[in-house]
């Protein structure tokens, strides 16, 4: 059974802040891939979700190798959160899927992109561990 870390509530507004997040995955043949995404979704204390709209490298990688590293930033608090996660399953219905779908539909429809953006699934990840770090470390103060 995998160890799961319990995310604190204070991470929720950071995930909703709208500052782009980072996802790094790795293919089965060992090539890392770093992507910038618009949003990470808080599912519960032990899970996050990423939207699967287009079949891209990230999606392909986690289906070969479930491990991923996700980072979200809180600029106002000068904090970044680094999460070690593992792809668990995909959902095509349910509250998380609906919330993601709604968000995408709302913006896409207003920008004339309604037919182009379609949420295929909500990829659910377990949080194995996380770190809360400051942007400025003691050793690098200017």
């Amino acid at each position, binding site marked *: 059974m995998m160890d799961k870390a319990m995310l604190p509530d204070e991470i929720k507004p950071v995930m909703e802040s709208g500052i782009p997040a980072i996802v790094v995955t790795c293919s089965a043949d060992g090539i890392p891939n770093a992507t910038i995404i618009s949003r990470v979704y808080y599912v519960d204390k032990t899970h996050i979700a990423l939207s699967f709209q287009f079949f891209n490298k990230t999606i392909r990688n986690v289906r070969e190798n479930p491990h991923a590293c996700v980072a979200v930033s809180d600029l106002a608090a000068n904090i970044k959160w680094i999460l070690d996660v593992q792809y668990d399953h995909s959902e095509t219905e349910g509250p998380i899927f609906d919330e993601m779908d709604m968000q995408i*539909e*709302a913006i896409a*429809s*207003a920008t*004339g992109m309604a037919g*182009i953006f379609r949420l295929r699934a909500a990829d659910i990840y377990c949080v194995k561990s996380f770190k809360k770090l400051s942007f400025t470390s003691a050793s690098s103060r200017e």
Partner: protein
Amino acid sequence: MTPEGVKDNDDLVERLAQKSAEVNVLRRIALDINSTLDLDQIYDIVLRTMDKFFGFHHSIILLLEHVDRLRVVASHGYKDQALGGTVAVGTGVIGTVAKRRRLMRVNNLRSQRAYFATIRSQMEEAGRTGELGQIVPLPGLADADSQIAIPLVIKDRLIGVFSVESREPKPFSEHDETLISIVASQAASAIQNALLYRAAEERRKELAEAHEGLKQLNETLEDRVRARTKELEQANRDLRETQAQLVQSSKMASIGMLAAGVAHEINTPIGAIHSNADVERRAVDVIRGILQDPALVKKLGHQPRLDRAFKIFEDVNRITLEATERVTRIIQSLKSFARLDQAELELVDLHEGLESTLTLIDHLMKDRIKVIKNYGKLPKVQCYASQINQVFANVLANAVQAIEETGSITITTYQDGSYVLIQVADTGVGIRTEHLDRIFDPGFTTKGVRVGIGLGLSITYRVIENHHGSIHVQSEPGKGTIFTIRLPIAR
């Protein structure tokens, strides 16, 4: 207590005070919006309170107008107030909330819009414009960065959406979401009640207006029916008069032709009879003269049979002469009455017309009715002689018929300025007061079906009217009737 403990305590107290203040505001909103059924007041309370107490500076209320469209009915904090703006269900944050009937809290809208705009321009550069839809302008802040939109639902029925926006970098929180949800839920009920009340009021007004309209229509209808009935009655009378006139004219034309024919045919033999009677009288006078010779008288002696024969002959001859003279006068009157040689407007001696008329109806009056004539000095009157004679005939005939046994008819004529007056007074049974207004109506008769069809006086009235004159009747039951005809001397 440690300083940290004191600080924690202070924080707790401050948070409690804040929560308490929020609850009070929410309670106040609930009371205020439920105390009114005026939609504008409800909108105002909700939007102003959200701004004043919770710092939501830009908010909109939209109501579902059709199954696929929402319309802005109230707004706060917008330059052009966005009122009247519409949102298609399914478009943008508000439209998506309406479609899904779920609350939505969105942050970092600017960045997301920019992200989608980047993709859009990439697609346009790649020549895939055909796959792109139109960018629809939506009511609200063009540069909003955060938005909470919540559906207003009553018993599973969507009535609208409540939306709050912000340009600030600080995004809306879960707590903001909770506050807005509570207010939206109360607002939904209040709005629904107000809408129902407004609909009921409008319906009531419509019914009242319809009722009033019906009432007026009813009254108008009755008036119109009455007026129409009167018109129809008048038209009927006019028609009958015209018919009668036509019939009368036709009759008169026939009678006139007949009279002319009869007069012509009778005139010659009557003239011959009259002339022969005169010749006979002179011949008898010659014979009487011869028989009065003294030598013949001595020889024949007294012959009483011869005297009687001469007497009988003289009487018969006299009667023959009087009779032929009378027939001649009747023919003359007939011709005069018909006045076939005068079908145009002429200057006419009215006394002549009266006399010829009296001659024609003499047989109706004989030994029963005395005619008294008070003829004044009348100038000739410009008129249609045959029509005026018809008038005299109608009036005199009525007078004769009104006298049941014996009585008199007095005819008075005189000039009154530019008019002449002809008055015919009888000592007949008179006309009942309730009939006086109707005696000139076509079809009205007191004589009974077999006696008359009641057109004579209506034609009389029409003829006088056409001559720009007037006819007036005075009567009293048992005391007789006076018809007064007034005609202009010149038309």
